[in-house]
């Protein structure tokens, strides 16, 4: 798995969510509602013989407007829903076949303030588990 290819492909898939702006790496710019595909903490190599499997946990940060309103709360809710056209989990796990990796599972989402510049944004941070061949 090539990290850059994986981040680009995940970003492209997220970009199919209507109204969600997506950046494929943390470039320091946010324009809510938006999703930022962030760097993983680590890539784990050699989970199978002969470079058969590597894994990474790729965080996806979804931000909504800084002052949380009912509208932005509902936006965030739709992104965190387990189903629906805006569901990050449903969009990433179903309906497509990744090329740069094998499987993706959206394992959890947690909520916290995400500081960008001097602004704190309400954020949903999705933890994904991505696995793929070490030889491709």
């Amino acid at each position: 798995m090539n990290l850059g290819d994986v981040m680009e492909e995940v970003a492209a898939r997220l970009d199919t969510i209507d109204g969600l702006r997506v950046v494929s790496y943390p470039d320091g710019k946010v324009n809510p509602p938006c999703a930022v595909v962030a760097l993983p903490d680590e890539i784990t190599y050699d989970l199978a013989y002969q470079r058969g499997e590597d894994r990474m946990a790729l965080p996806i940060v979804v931000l909504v407007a800084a002052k949380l309103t009912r509208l932005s709360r509902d936006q965030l809710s739709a992104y965190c829903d387990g189903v629906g056209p805006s569901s990050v989990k449903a969009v990433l796990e179903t309906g497509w076949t990744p090329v740069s990796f094998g499987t993706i599972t959206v394992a959890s989402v947690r909520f916290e303030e995400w500081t960008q510049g001097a602004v704190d944004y309400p954020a949903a941070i999705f933890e994904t588990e991505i696995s793929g061949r070490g030889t491709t």
Partner: protein
Amino acid sequence: MSRGHGRLTVFKVGTSDISQYCDTSEWTDDSDVHDTTGYGASGHGYDPGLADGKVTVGGTYDTTALTGPRAVLVPALRTKVLVTRQPEGTGTGKPQDKATCVLKSYVETAPVADYTKWTAEFTIDGVTDRTPQT
């Protein structure tokens, strides 16, 4: 000193190389042991008996339909297949365990919050051929 690393292992069933789907394997050569202790002995005496053995292998389930472990192993259940394990990888002179085996079991385990895993157990028919790779 150079320590062997498990990641280099090659595991084949027949002509199918399933190494990239495996994360564990074990080749056990066992044998019967006959107790020959006679009256008056101060300790047990033993003689070696027939060889016996088994091979176990496992990994993470893969959906690769034609070459994945399920595709290779399920049709081989309760049949004799040639099993090959190369603990240092492929290369002339490197060690190799090879035996005709009966595929005794294939088990898939699917925990809800983790990857599906599989294991298989082979019973060795005869003895292990330990001739190094050519």
